[in-house]
């Protein structure tokens, strides 16, 4: 053993000893703090004093700690200064385009500071993470659901589960206000709300043997909490699936190239499933690479299809036709065995997703494009063409994933807590993975802002606002101060291999054009613009359809679980009558929202995306209610603000947004006002359906708000009871068991 270590173990020295040996401890400590004189001081003191081994060790340790501290202070001060500078540039710079690297710098610094200081504070002071406490992965390890897993592996697994189309689509839509509101909300929302929610819920689930959010809500806030969480999850799933399907429809309508490519992913996934089952069992990465190559071939095949009139006719589908096909696909995918379609599609989309996100990050860094969108547009007044409403509250519900998403609390209380090896790793997995998703949202903002504003609005504005004819649409958008011409749009459509790019609402096509712009400037030039555009569309549509498959099935299981209380056989997931009935119920529900969006003259996104945002943020409200309740029951009330503040913000945002969406007198914002306006204008069968749809949307929003208000009320009752001492503050944690894991990590 090294002599210094041996002497440290004996711990013979004290400050009094140091003084007795002639060393003025405090005087020298002050001198050591001076970075410039540190080495000189050390040499002088060492030469003057005769030290024993242990004295020298303490001295060196002290110096090393001081040096490390000084370096750390300098380093983090530099990060804070750079972050402040970058944020100031993006916030205060006006009238001239800025470089995307300012957004990247601001994001990187905010995440670094948030992770280093805020998450560490939460971990140490509020949650008191205990590395010695055995996690359910260790105590209940069964090799299947519960499994001790390396923290980086869990991080990758968790990120792959939380990253979906949301952080790409929401930020693109919110760019109608300019790049500033969305970017600031993504950064602040992630650091102070989204990452905190994911981290805290993950830890609480770990301490409760991996219980789900609905179970924790029932245990901590009462039966109402559990019921509302269940209803919110079903509602959010249904609305999410409807919106996701609408995004795909809007991206693929009248696009033979895109439709052919996406259609080909179905036989490719089936082929992968059969290959895995019959030819090379379990070789998933191998078959994913094979599937990816086939998908690339399908993109080139799509080009051929779009240029061959007889084939192009078959794949040029209207929005209603595509909606019908997607509904039929959703039903079939929900009823087919998992191994045949869902699992291989999931593997393929994960493979493409991780690769493309990495590629986009590299592309942005290498190209560091200029953002043409202004910091703030004229639509901050609430008159935006993509969705109506002012920055507050609509920017904050439009961007959910990327800032804070209630859906993440389901993942954080699902598979992930059953894989965590140590409590201390929840910080990296929960807080860290959400930061990574937030970074994806920043990339989406950049991809949308590299487009000329006129082009961005031409792609994203519905025909009902700007007009159907290209000349009329271009003139309307130019009249807003965002210059664009029909000829420019035609040239762009031609460059990306489309017939037209007007009125492609939903965010996906605008993101794809931006991404193609970045990729084609990095690799391949303008010649590959069309290939990159369709690659981006394939990338988005592929994992949106995976969300559709998986979401339909998850909702189906949840309904089957509930129906089992009424009639037991309905809960059997292998009983075909039950499978078909519940699949039809789920697909019918989201299919209805999809159809409503397709038939909406304002493009559907205007009403459905805010509805989805409200549902998602309301679920986050439930998760934060549960988290605050647990923190108060842990007698950490002085720190309850870490979840209480985001909760208060979300309540303000979602309740205000819900109020506007239901009661706002403007027909473009309020569902009821639009229903009234349609009733007054032309009482036809079509308008009667639109009136019904608007009233339905208002009812859904109202019911969700009432249910979440109940959870909030129940939670506040619990908090007051615990604080007054009238209520038992017992928390439903599993008992402490000392870990048996060795200190080294397991892989």
């Amino acid at each position, binding site marked *: 053993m090294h002599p210094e270590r041996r002497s440290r173990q004996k711990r013979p020295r004290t400050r009094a000893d140091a003084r007795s040996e002639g060393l003025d401890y405090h005087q020298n400590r002050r001198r050591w703090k001076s970075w410039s004189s540190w080495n000189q001081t050390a040499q002088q003191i060492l030469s003057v004093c005769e030290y024993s081994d242990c004295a020298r060790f303490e001295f060196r340790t002290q110096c090393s700690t001081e040096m490390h501290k000084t370096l750390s202070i300098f380093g983090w001060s530099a990060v804070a200064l750079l972050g402040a500078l970058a944020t100031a540039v993006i916030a205060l710079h006006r009238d001239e385009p800025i470089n995307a690297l300012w957004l990247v710098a601001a994001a990187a610094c905010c995440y670094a500071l948030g992770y280093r200081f805020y998450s560490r504070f939460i971990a140490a002071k509020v949650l008191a993470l205990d590395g010695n406490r055995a996690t359910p992965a260790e105590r209940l390890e069964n090799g*299947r659901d519960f499994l001790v897993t390396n923290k980086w592996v869990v991080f990758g697994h968790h990120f792959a*589960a*939380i990253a979906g189309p949301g952080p790409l689509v929401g930020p693109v839509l919110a760019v109608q206000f300019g790049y500033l509101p969305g970017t600031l909300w993504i950064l602040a929302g992630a650091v102070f709300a989204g990452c905190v929610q994911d981290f805290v819920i993950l830890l609480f689930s770990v301490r409760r043997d991996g219980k789900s959010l609905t179970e924790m809500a029932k245990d901590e806030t009462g039966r109402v909490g559990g019921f509302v969480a269940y209803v919110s999850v079903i509602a959010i799933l249904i609305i999410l699936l409807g919106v996701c399907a609408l995004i795909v429809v809007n991206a693929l309508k009248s696009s033979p190239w895109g439709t052919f490519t996406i259609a080909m992913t179905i036989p490719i996934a089936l082929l992968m499933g059969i290959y895995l089952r019959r030819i090379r*069992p379990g*070789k998933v*990465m191998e078959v994913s690479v094979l599937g990816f190559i086939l998908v690339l071939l399908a993109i080139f095949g799509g080009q051929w299809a779009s240029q061959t009139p007889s084939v192009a006719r078959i794949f040029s589908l209207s929005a209603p036709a595509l909606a019908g096909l997607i509904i039929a696909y959703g039903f079939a995918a929900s009823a087919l065995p998992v191994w045949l379609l869902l699992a291989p599609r999931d593997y393929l989309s994960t493979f493409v997703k991780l690769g493309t996100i990495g590629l986009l990050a590299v592309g942005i860094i290498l190209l560091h494009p200029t953002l043409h969108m202004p910091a703030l547009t004229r639509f901050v007044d609430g008159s935006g063409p993509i969705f109506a409403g002012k920055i507050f509250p609509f920017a904050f519900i439009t961007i959910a994933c990327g800032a804070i998403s209630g859906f993440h609390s389901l993942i954080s209380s699902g598979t992930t807590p059953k894989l965590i090896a140590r409590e201390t790793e929840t910080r990296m997995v929960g807080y860290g993975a959400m930061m990574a998703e937030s970074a994806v949202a920043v990339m989406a903002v950049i991809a949308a802002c590299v487009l000329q504003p006129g082009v961005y609005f031409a792609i994203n504005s519905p025909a009902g606002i700007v007009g159907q004819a290209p000349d009329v649409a271009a003139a309307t958008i130019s009249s807003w101060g965002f210059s664009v011409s029909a000829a420019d749009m035609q040239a762009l459509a031609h460059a990306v291999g489309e017939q037209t790019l007007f009125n492609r609402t939903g965010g996906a096509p605008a993101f794809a054009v931006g991404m193609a712009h970045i990729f084609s400037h990095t690799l391949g030039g303008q010649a590959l613009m069309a290939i990159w555009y369709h690659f981006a569309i394939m990338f988005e549509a592929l994992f949106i359809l995976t*969300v559709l498959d998986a979401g339909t*099935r998850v909702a189906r299981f949840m309904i089957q679980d509930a129906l089992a209380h009424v009639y037991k056989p309905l809960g059997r*997931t292998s009983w075909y009558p039950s499978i078909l009935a519940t699949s039809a119920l789920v697909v019918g529900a989201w299919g209805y929202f999809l159809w409503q969006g397709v038939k909406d003259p304002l493009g559907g996104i205007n009403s459905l995306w805010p509805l989805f945002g409200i549902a998602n943020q309301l679920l986050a409200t439930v998760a934060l209610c549960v988290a605050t309740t647990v923190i108060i029951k842990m007698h950490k009330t002085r720190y309850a603000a870490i979840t209480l503040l985001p909760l208060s913000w979300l309540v303000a945002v979602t309740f205000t947004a819900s109020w506007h969406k239901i009661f706002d007198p403007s027909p473009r914002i309020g569902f009821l006002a639009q229903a009234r306006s349609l009733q007054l204008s032309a009482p036809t069968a079509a308008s009667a359906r639109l009136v019904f749809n608007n009233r339905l949307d208002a009812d859904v929003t109202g019911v969700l708000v009432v249910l979440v208000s109940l959870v909030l009320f129940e939670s506040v009752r619990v908090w007051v009871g615990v604080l007054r001492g009238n209520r038992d503050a017992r928390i439903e944690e599993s008992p402490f068991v000392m870990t048996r894991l060795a200190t080294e990590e397991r892989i």
Partner: protein
Amino acid sequence: MNHLVRVLRILRATLREIFDEASYARFLQRTNASSSPGAYAAYWREREASHARKPRCC
């Protein structure tokens, strides 16, 4: 060099976990079976319900 090897090992382990290869290997170890279409079918029978209940976020 050691760091690089370690990073690559973790990356590989992450991908194997995400793509369920590690899960299948654990199944084979647990059941003392060797990889075959039959074993893979049995593996899927065992985990179909849990895989299908895994939500993917928006």
